[in-house]
């Protein structure tokens, strides 16, 4: 059994003109110490997926169905008190903007001690000692002095290190990191990512990394999910997806990267843009932008327009695509004919 299992997660936002379904049928799992990447464009639902793990969806959003099992325990429907024992303790979060996450009127030390004492019966002095040790782990220069500084006295990269230290304070099983380096500069970003990777490996902590940067995902994670318009459309080992993406959208994303084209030549763009969630097209949500709706012989693959695709397994990956399903079917048939 995996440490974290998410099945058929359905998250909706109740708006005046009706419910908007932000997540549909999201399934994934995470083993102990495993690193999982969630990629997609803004509005694809990757942050909602991560936030719903700890029931951090703000109203008018609500979890309408599905199950989230963490270490054998069902998290959906769990009371606030019980959930608080897991939040920040066994599953902790790192948010995108380090300035928004830290409390500007408390020193770094106060915030760390507060967090420790909220979960453990422990003296302030001991809590401070643990905090100091964690700051040393994240390689902050002169950690002793930092404990008594306020967040505004630290640079962006330093703040994100403090936040990683806070996330690690209670030795969690899983860290959920929502675009942890997007607000940072390239060189700082590389350092923070390397640090996070190192710490997760050292302490055997599972990582759910949400990002739009395929480069970061390919360097840090072992498995990845690709999301589009509230659905997972492809998942599998990161290397395999990057090297041989099955779903046309994943292919499009990777091919659109500037490094995939010869300098100066035209980039392989995906036409159009992601539909808004309250205006999804019928069938496969990607079909209006997809180049494979029309078969090579000019006939339209009607299933793409009419019917939402289910997952098909291809190697170690799964993709939700009629075209991939058709290809696998075609490959299997002759093989079976030969067998018989």
């Amino acid at each position, binding site marked *: 059994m995996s440490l974290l299992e998410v099945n058929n997660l359905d998250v909706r936002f109740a708006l005046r003109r009706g419910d908007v379904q932000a997540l549909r049928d999201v399934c994934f799992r995470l083993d102990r110490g495993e690193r999982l990447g969630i990629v997609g464009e803004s509005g694809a639902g990757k942050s909602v997926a991560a936030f719903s793990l700890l029931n951090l969806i703000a109203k008018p959003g609500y979890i309408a169905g599905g199950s989230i099992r963490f270490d054998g325990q069902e998290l959906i429907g769990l009371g606030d008190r019980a959930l608080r024992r897991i939040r920040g303790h066994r599953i902790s979060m790192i948010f995108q903007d380090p300035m928004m996450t830290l409390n500007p009127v408390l020193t770094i030390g106060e915030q760390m001690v507060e967090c420790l004492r909220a979960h453990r019966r422990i003296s302030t002095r001991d809590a401070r000692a643990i905090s100091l040790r964690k700051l040393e782990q994240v390689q902050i220069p002169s950690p002793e002095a930092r404990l008594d500084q306020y967040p505004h006295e630290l640079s962006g*990269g330093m703040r994100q290190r403090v936040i990683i230290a806070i996330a690690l304070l209670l030795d969690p099983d899983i860290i959920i990191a929502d675009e942890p380096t997007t607000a940072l500069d*390239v060189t700082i970003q590389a350092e923070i990512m390397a640090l996070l990777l190192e710490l997760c490996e050292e302490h055997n902590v599972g990582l759910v990394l949400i990002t*739009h940067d395929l480069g970061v995902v390919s360097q840090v994670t072992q498995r990845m999910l690709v999301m589009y318009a509230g659905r997972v459309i492809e998942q599998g080992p990161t290397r395999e997806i*990057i090297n041989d993406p099955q779903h046309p959208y994943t292919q499009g*994303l*990777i091919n659109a990267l500037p*490094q995939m084209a010869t300098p100066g030549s035209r980039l392989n763009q*995906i036409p159009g843009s992601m539909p808004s969630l309250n205006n999804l097209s019928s069938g496969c949500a990607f079909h209006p932008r997809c180049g494979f709706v029309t078969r090579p012989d000019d006939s339209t693959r009607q299933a793409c327009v009419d019917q939402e695709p289910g997952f098909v397994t291809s190697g170690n990956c799964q993709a939700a695509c009629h075209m991939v399903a058709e290809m696998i079917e075609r490959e299997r048939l002759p093989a079976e004919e030969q067998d018989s």
Partner: protein
Amino acid sequence: MSATATSPAPEQASPLLSLRGLEKRFSLSGDFLEQLKFKGGKLVREQQYVHAINGVDLDIQRGEALCVVGESGCGKSTVARTVMGLITPSGGEIHYDGERIDDRSTRALLPYRRRMQMIFQNPYASLNPRMTIQQTLEEPIRLHHPDWTPQRVEEQVAEVMASVGIAPDWGGRYGHEFSGGQRQRIAIARALAVDPEFIVADEPISALDVSIQAQVLNLLMEAQRERNLTYLFITHDLAVVEHFGTRVAVMYLGRVCEVAPTATLFATPRHPYTQALMSAIPRLEDERPQHLRLQGEVPTPVHLPSGCVFHGRCPHADARCRREVPSLIATDEGGQVACHGVEEGRIG
């Protein structure tokens, strides 16, 4: 700055735009009364500055796409805004097509404004929410061609809309009705409406999603081919630079530390900062990041370090680096680099 940096090689044609020792300071101290401090029994006037750019020399040749890269706070956007005359420089000169433009009045600058246009980073902020797309696109044409008939203005708008792939029925709609990528398309159309020859683009794609970035980059490259444009392209995304730029200038703390043709810079970065920057690009190929770690972080541009601005984080810094400001010197590969270590042959 050194003579090698400013004088173009003899065989080159005169540059379209050239910056000479450009400087910009922003005062941090408020008005006169706020600057007065009481120290040691005496009233003294104290002023603090953010040194956004200090001594930038750059030449941009006709038809090229010069990319300026660097981390936030390095002054790349200030360079763009100063070139466009949105900010008056504190020192140095800007020459456009051989004429000095930084000391001109707004009126005298108007003919140049038609020839140089800007595309901003955030398409949600750069379009006037109370103007229709048609009005947005007509405004610059009316300003620069007051003698044109309404019919001719409309023709010009229709032509530019077609060239960037805007459907004619968008004209009557407002900016908020469009997605980020569509808005950036409109912003590009507005820049192209007056047939400029030079475009300054300040992070034009960084607010957009990955799949849309490719669309906008393609559009910019098409426009360059069709209209023979020259770009000054500000970005922090090195993958985009590698694809789009013909030459790259790397900035650090308000100074240019290396300029080179794109292929050269990516194959053999010379400046230690460029090397660190290159190694930090997240690539799809390698599974483990092998980047050069720099010590510390970028110092504030309020108290600039002495000597080379990079010496505090440079693994190769010595006494001379801490004392003496390096100037740009030409390299064998056709680039320029400002580093004592490279000049002395200490760094490969």
